[in-house]
């Protein structure tokens, strides 16, 4: 059994072992603490020279990482909570994302910035957000959000080996969860043959899907939703991309063309998000041949409550998704 956390820990160890240019930096990541979510636990003991604890200054240490990357190192930076990425935004948007295109050179530039994101643990408004939409649409940044159906460690390894900066979003509810693979899944799982794969999940492989559901990242409600929909004879084609800063994957358009009905779920707040862009792409790809308007479910357009019961209501939850599916099918 491998957990999400275990996969990240394992692949970080392997990356540091096989590639001496890889190094890891961030706040409070040294042993015995091993990072706020323990992703770097054990690393500083094994690789004391290449696991660097930093002051509380995201702009400062992402800047340092930019410099290292420019000189050929491969830094993997941890932001303690994804919410704090705002402090490093200038280094990412105005520097990391621009180097290759501005200097017109084939830079061998590698940088991954990892961060735990998302709510569900009662951490309140400034420790629970999904802020990726601040970076979506900025050219030359790869934004990755492995789900429980992806192997996050493998994606991390691919991310640091590909040129250009990558933001790597780890939903904090996933760390303790066992990875779901075609071998142990209750529902049919299929991964596309890409470095950053698209996962396809369905609750009936024999029947034609009634509805296309598109989501990414956390989405721990999926197994219960698939189970419940199966009881109601509603067959879902669920598509979970791991790479976000790009147009809708062709398989998403193909599925939507088949079903004509689409629900998109994202955890970020309110409008102007990833879901809106995917809906736009689909609307184009399908020549308006949708049977129902595309529905996008996201968090309420306000701050995330710290009280867990209220937080549950605030974030996309099973009841809301289930209800929306019935609406779109009716």
């Amino acid at each position, binding site marked *: 059994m491998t957990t999400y956390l275990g996969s990240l820990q394992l692949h970080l160890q392997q990356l540091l072992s096989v590639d001496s240019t890889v190094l890891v930096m961030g706040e409070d990541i040294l042993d015995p603490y091993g990072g706020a979510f323990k992703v770097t636990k054990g690393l500083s003991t094994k690789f004391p020279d290449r696991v660097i604890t930093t002051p509380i200054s995201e702009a400062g240490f992402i800047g340092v990482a930019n410099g290292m990357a420019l000189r050929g190192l491969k830094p993997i930076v941890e932001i303690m909570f994804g919410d704090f990425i705002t402090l490093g935004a200038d280094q990412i948007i105005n520097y990391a994302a621009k180097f290759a295109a501005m200097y017109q050179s084939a830079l061998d530039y590698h940088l991954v910035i990892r961060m735990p994101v998302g709510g569900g643990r009662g951490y309140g408004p400034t420790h629970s957000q999904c802020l990726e939409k601040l970076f979506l649409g900025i050219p030359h940044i790869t934004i990755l959000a492995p789900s429980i159906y992806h192997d996050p460690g493998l994606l991390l390894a691919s991310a640091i080996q590909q040129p250009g900066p990558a933001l790597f979003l780890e939903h904090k509810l996933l760390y303790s969860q066992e990875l779901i693979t075609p071998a142990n899944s209750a529902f049919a799982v299929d991964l596309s043959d890409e470095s950053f794969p698209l996962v396809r999940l369905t609750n009936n492989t024999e029947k034609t899907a*009634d509805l296309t559901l598109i989501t990414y990242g956390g989405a721990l409600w999926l197994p*219960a939703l698939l189970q419940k929909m199966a009881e*109601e*004879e509603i067959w879902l084609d669920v598509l979970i991309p791991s790479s976000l800063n790009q147009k809708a994957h062709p398989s998403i358009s193909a599925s939507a063309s088949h079903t004509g009905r689409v629900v998109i779920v994202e955890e970020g707040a309110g409008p102007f998000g990833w879901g809106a862009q995917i809906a736009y792409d689909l609307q184009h790809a399908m020549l308006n*041949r949708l049977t129902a308007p595309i529905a996008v479910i996201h968090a309420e357009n306000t701050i995330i409550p710290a009280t867990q019961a209220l937080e549950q209501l605030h974030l996309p939850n*099973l*009841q809301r998704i289930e209800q929306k599916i019935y609406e779109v*099918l009716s």
Partner: protein
Amino acid sequence: MSVLLYAPMVNVNEEQMNLVEWHKQPKEFVNKGELLATFETTKSTYDFHATDSGFFVPLVEAGSQVTVGEVIAALTDQPDEDIQTLLPSETEKLEAKPHSLQQTAGNRWTRKAEILAKRHNVPPQEMESLTSADVRITEEVVQAYLQQKSTTTGKQANQGFSNATELILILGGGNVACLVLDILARIPQQTAVAILDDNPALQNTTVMGVPVLGNLDRAKSLFDQNFFDKAALAVGILPARRELFEKLSNLGIPFANIIDPSAIIGVNASMGIGNMIMAFCRLGPESQIGDNNFLSAYANIEHHNRMGSHCTFGPGVAMSGGVTIGNSVRFGTGIFIEPRLTIGNNAVIASGVTLTADVPENTVVRAKANFHW
């Protein structure tokens, strides 16, 4: 009143922590607010004070790992009280799990059956009275009901629940693609998913909203990935049209007939595959055409005509009955053809011709008026 004490959440990132020390002895009386235990997380130590008064009953040992929310001790009213009744029973633990979903079992209908019935205006009371009370009303039950209704009324209802359409890959992204996409935009049964074209300038663009996804040689791999169901050749000229059709057919790629909704297909008319039939065309009764023909607008293939494959038409070609046409025949624009004539393979009929005699194979028929004398 006797109470249970639970491990508090000290650090929001940690589910577990060390209970380092109990500061009281078992059975000792503790006053509310007195220091009772010390916890240690990876970040800090934490002093835990009694939330009530009572005789102390430790339930975990000092030095052990405890989980947030776990019962760690009790404070009882009497020194030797039995605390078993205080502890949550197994059934209570089960019931404490949140019911996150709407109840399914009690519902007489599945949601799909309900939605399907609504779509077809089936009165729910009627469905329920027709079905015995212990049978759940499923999609199958509603479908069977609709089936019966449609035979009794002689109506052909669209009973399908899914909106499955045939996914079409368009080969060629030029002007002819617009003709094909224009037809597909009006046919719900077929959907264009993508275009392939060898022209580098078209890559990563869209044609009428449909993305160009690469060169023509990508068709095979896209087909193997189930990306599309059938292909359509948006190429209007021979011999390219024929060559592509044959090449891709040999790779196992099936071709769709694309037929404008305004076209009229007569009784017992038949066609092969890969035919493009544009607006206002007509296949007369008992006529037969082969594969991969391209009929521009206003082509009239009259009754009992026989046509081979790979023929292309300009707009406005009108045939009389009983005409026989070979393969790869090219027709220009505005042509009239008398009854029962035969046109051989690879013939070319120029625009404006009125044919009154048979045309042998490989012949070019020019309209006199087009010549400059």
